[in-house]
């Protein structure tokens, strides 16, 4: 096999890890609270700025800046939930969509106002590994590894703990959870915290590879949604698989065509598959 194709496949796999992490957080929130956070990628953007400012301006060590950014994303997500989502839990889905869409524009505009439209980066250049003629970016490798650790951690939480089981159960039958003695609003708060914490983790991984600017969310947001819908909205395993399918299409497509064409290809694949299977790969 062509060595450049192999390199593309490996890079696709590495990209898939971060996409999977993003889709896990979004799917978790949707599956449990039944509200789509259109603004999810903007929480990621805000946390990327947090890493950037803490690291470059205040000179914090990178790991500490990342930990703080995860806490920041969690607090921001809790605010989104308590201020925006809670009051409209019983509203029509379209209104919820518009409200979280409003948060998207709010965060974008606020970032523009505060930081301008400059592209900023940490100025860290991690080495590129060479393995038998294949070049792999070290930052992508780290991102992939940590994304997998995050996914496994989430899986263990959901399958092994009482709260995690409750999170899965509430996605299956909201009303009956009350009869189990569960205050569903508390589970919603917890879910928003975990989901936005995952967004913070994803931000730490992305900021190693990409420049931050107020519209960076638009680069990941649509693909994250595509991944979630493709996997079956709310289905975390489906989203996980779909993340790797989409990233492979983009990576391998980018080997044969220009990278923009590869993204078009990914969306065409998505549209065709959704016409055939509207519920997604693993949706019910």
């Amino acid at each position, binding site marked *: 096999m062509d060595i450049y194709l192999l390199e593309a496949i490996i890079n696709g796999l590495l990209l898939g890890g971060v996409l999977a992490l993003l889709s896990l957080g979004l799917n978790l929130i949707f599956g449990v609270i039944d509200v789509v956070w259109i603004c999810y990628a903007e929480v990621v953007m805000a946390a990327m700025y947090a890493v950037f400012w803490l690291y470059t301006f205040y000179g914090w060590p990178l790991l500490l800046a990342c930990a703080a950014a995860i806490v920041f994303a969690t607090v921001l997500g809790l605010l989104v939930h308590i201020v925006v989502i809670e009051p409209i839990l019983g509203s029509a889905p379209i209104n919820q969509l518009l409200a979280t869409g409003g948060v998207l524009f709010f965060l974008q505009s606020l970032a523009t106002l505060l930081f301008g439209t400059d592209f900023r980066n940490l100025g860290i250049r991690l080495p590129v590994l060479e393995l038998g003629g294949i070049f792999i970016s070290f930052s992508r490798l780290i991102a992939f590894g940590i994304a997998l650790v995050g996914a496994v951690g989430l899986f263990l939480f959901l399958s092994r703990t*009482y709260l995690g*089981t409750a999170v899965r*159960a509430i996605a*299956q039958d909201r009303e*009956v959870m*009350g009869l*189990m003695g569960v205050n569903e609003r508390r589970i919603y708060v917890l879910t928003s915290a975990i989901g936005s914490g995952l967004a913070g983790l994803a931000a730490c991984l992305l900021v190693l590879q990409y420049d931050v600017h107020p519209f960076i969310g638009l680069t990941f947001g649509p693909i994250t949604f595509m991944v979630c819908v493709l996997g079956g909205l709310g289905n975390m395993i489906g989203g996980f698989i779909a993340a790797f399918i989409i990233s492979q299409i983009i990576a391998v497509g980018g080997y044969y065509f220009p990278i923009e064409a590869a993204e078009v290809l990914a969306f065409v694949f998505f549209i065709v598959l959704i016409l055939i299977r509207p519920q997604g790969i693993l949706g019910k």
Partner: protein
Amino acid sequence: MTILLNLERVSAGYGSFAALFNVSLDVKNGETVGVVGANGAGKTTLLRVISGLLPPRSGRIDFDGESLAGAPAYRVVAAGIAHVPENRRLFPRLTVEENLRMGAYLPAARKAFAERAAWVYELFPQLQARRRQLAGTLSGGEQQMVAIGRALMTKPKLLLMDEPSAGLAPLVVEQVFALVRRIRAEGFTVLLVEQNVRQVLDVVDRAYLLETGRVKLAGTATALKQNPFVQQSYLGL
């Protein structure tokens, strides 16, 4: 016997539709009480109001010295009322054991999980072998056992059962009523809602007959079985 649950002139409904009108009812400690009536008589609504899934429009609900009218479901459970809902409502993609775990969500029940689960498996030995199986893959009768087991995990002072025989084959219906007798024998206080009047009157001490949201008749099971109106309209005699 002390009164455990007391409803006084409770009214409730959905939107502009009124489903219950001034229903008064009581359940004493250790009793098994039935609520019977046709489809749409308000039986399910009555249980939903007691367990906090639907707030009453007016009236009092007192349970074990506490007022529960308008309390959210999770507080009603903590007060000691467990509800086996209509259509069982298991978590289909959780295993049998995980369903029981959810039933034991309250801190006190969580601590006693191992012991209570062992007791539920002793009560329903069939479930022991299926504990790792997804609840959605069980037969209707087994699902009913899980639903009852899940509700028993909190050791409730009062067990509400909504149409446990609905949608089950006649042979399984017999088994479900045998289950109700077993639970009675274990000393639980039960409020049982059923359409199946004949079989209910064989397992309860007393019963209330609901018609279009009102209590039409009340009395001991024996008295109701001999009541000419019940015989004609509900027992087909």
